[in-house]
């Protein structure tokens, strides 16, 4: 062994100590590998490695009809399945200038908000567990179960619904849908304060999250961090407000903005969004027209006119953009999904750099990553 090599082995200070977090790690919530360079306990650099569950959804879309694409979008961000379906449906409807019945728009918005709450439930449960608060998991999943029961009653599925299609809905919702949703709001209004006393007001939780993983507004805009993670840094990016779709322009609600930009403020944004979603739900249920219309008249084979189309939708994690190039055939020529988690992931290095390795779990948890949405 040459002298130089021995010297390199002996002098560890000049080398990065590399640790692989993942691909199988409980706090990454999926197959994501973070290559972490360490100096003792301090994080020097985080390099995400992705692609473990890349399924080439964009390529598959080129061989599918527009109605078939819906089923693939479910599998991107599986916790925002309704919003993903809605993005493609809205794009097709806008391109063909189809006006869907008013009732459909309200049902879609109700489903969006219900899945937003359910998604935040799961995030809250897992986030608490990441930080060592095991009880949150039972509280969160208990309440999420109520929403999944509503979904199951209407669509027969709990996670991947494929319910919103171009032109309307697959079929009508269950007759109990309105009653169940109202009951859930009544139930969850009582339960949400429990979340506050359990975790939000906990002093240990404050010490783990306050001032950790700071992201200013400029970084958030530059890296395209949208959704609750971006709004935690004061970046006004709620697509429901800035480019309203469906019935969101007829509903009164606030965009939740916090300016601290740390883990705790991203946490608060999601907690307040759950409350705001319930306010939206109450208005929607109030205004939802009676009847049994669930779809507009659509041709059996959908063909978009030649051209390019873009549709933005707010999912539970940020802005989803669908870009379609059509040549007038029944298959799209090119489909592109701008998924929120892809942009949200790559800011991780900026947030974790200079902090402790233990905070990395809190930071990646506060970004609320869903890995299939990154890989697509």
């Amino acid at each position: 062994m040459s002298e130089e090599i021995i010297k390199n082995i002996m002098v560890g200070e000049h080398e990065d100590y590399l640790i692989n977090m993942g691909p199988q790690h409980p706090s990454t919530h999926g197959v994501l590998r973070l290559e972490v360079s360490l100096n003792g306990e301090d994080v020097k650099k985080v390099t995400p490695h992705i692609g473990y569950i890349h399924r080439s959804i964009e390529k598959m879309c080129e061989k599918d009809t527009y109605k078939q694409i819906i089923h693939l979008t479910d599998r991107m961000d599986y916790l925002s399945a309704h919003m993903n379906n809605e993005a493609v449906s809205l794009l097709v409807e806008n391109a063909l200038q189809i006006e869907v019945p008013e009732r459909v728009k309200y049902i879609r918005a109700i489903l969006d908000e219900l899945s937003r709450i359910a998604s935040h439930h799961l995030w809250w449960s897992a986030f608490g567990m990441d930080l060592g608060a095991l009880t949150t998991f039972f509280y969160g999943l208990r309440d999420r179960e109520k929403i999944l029961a509503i979904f199951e009653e209407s669509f027969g599925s709990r996670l991947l619904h494929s319910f919103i299609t171009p032109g309307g809905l697959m079929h009508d919702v269950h007759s109990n849908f309105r009653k169940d949703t109202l009951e859930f709001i009544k139930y969850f209004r009582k339960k949400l304060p429990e979340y506050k006393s359990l975790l939000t007001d906990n002093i240990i939780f404050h010490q783990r999250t306050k001032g950790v993983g700071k992201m200013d507004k400029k970084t958030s805009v530059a890296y395209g961090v949208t959704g609750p993670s971006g709004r935690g840094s004061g970046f006004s990016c709620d697509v429901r407000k800035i480019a309203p779709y469906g019935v969101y322009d007829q509903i009164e609600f606030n965009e939740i903005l916090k300016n601290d930009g740390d883990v705790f403020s991203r946490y608060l944004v999601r907690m307040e969004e759950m409350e705001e979603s319930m306010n939206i739900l109450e208005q929607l249920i109030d205004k939802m027209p009676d009847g049994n219309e669930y779809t507009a008249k659509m041709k059996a084979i959908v063909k978009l006119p030649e051209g390019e189309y873009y549709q933005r939708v707010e999912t539970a994690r940020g802005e989803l953009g669908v870009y379609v190039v059509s040549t007038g055939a029944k298959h799209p020529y090119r489909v592109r999904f701008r998924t929120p988690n892809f942009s949200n992931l790559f800011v991780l290095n900026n947030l974790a750099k200079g902090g402790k390795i233990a905070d990395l779990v809190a930071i990646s948890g506060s970004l609320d990553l869903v890995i299939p949405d990154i890989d697509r």
Partner: protein
Amino acid sequence: MDNKTDLVEVLSKLIPLGKVTMGNQYPEIIVDPDKLHKTALALKDLKTTPFDFLIDVTAVDFVTHFLLVFHLESTNTHEVIVLKTQLEDHDSPFVDSVSDLWPTAEFQEREIFDLFGIRFNNHPDLRRLFMEDDYGYPLRKDFKDEINIIEYPN
């Protein structure tokens, strides 16, 4: 609609490098690839509507050429514009990177390099993102997957 035609007029005065038209949804600017970075910088530094939020970068393979499409939003006014450039060289396409203006472009460009094989000059870290190094460029139209299990009828 009026606001958007206004924006087209303003942009055509301020951005003399490209052609500004009104697309079916957003104003569109089409530039030559060698003027892409300059135009992007001008758009980012606009006074009233700085287009500081890069929503999306993507490419489309038109068999004879590639089209690069940038969707930009101004966080002041929430107006969206589309910046496009056409890469004529289909065999070894390349263009200047804009990752120094919008850091998010670094990773979106890596994805485009991975799936289309478009090279970005001055990119800090141009590696494959999803695929292995010797894999083809799967989103090109002439890509043939030899181990594909399912065959689609055309």
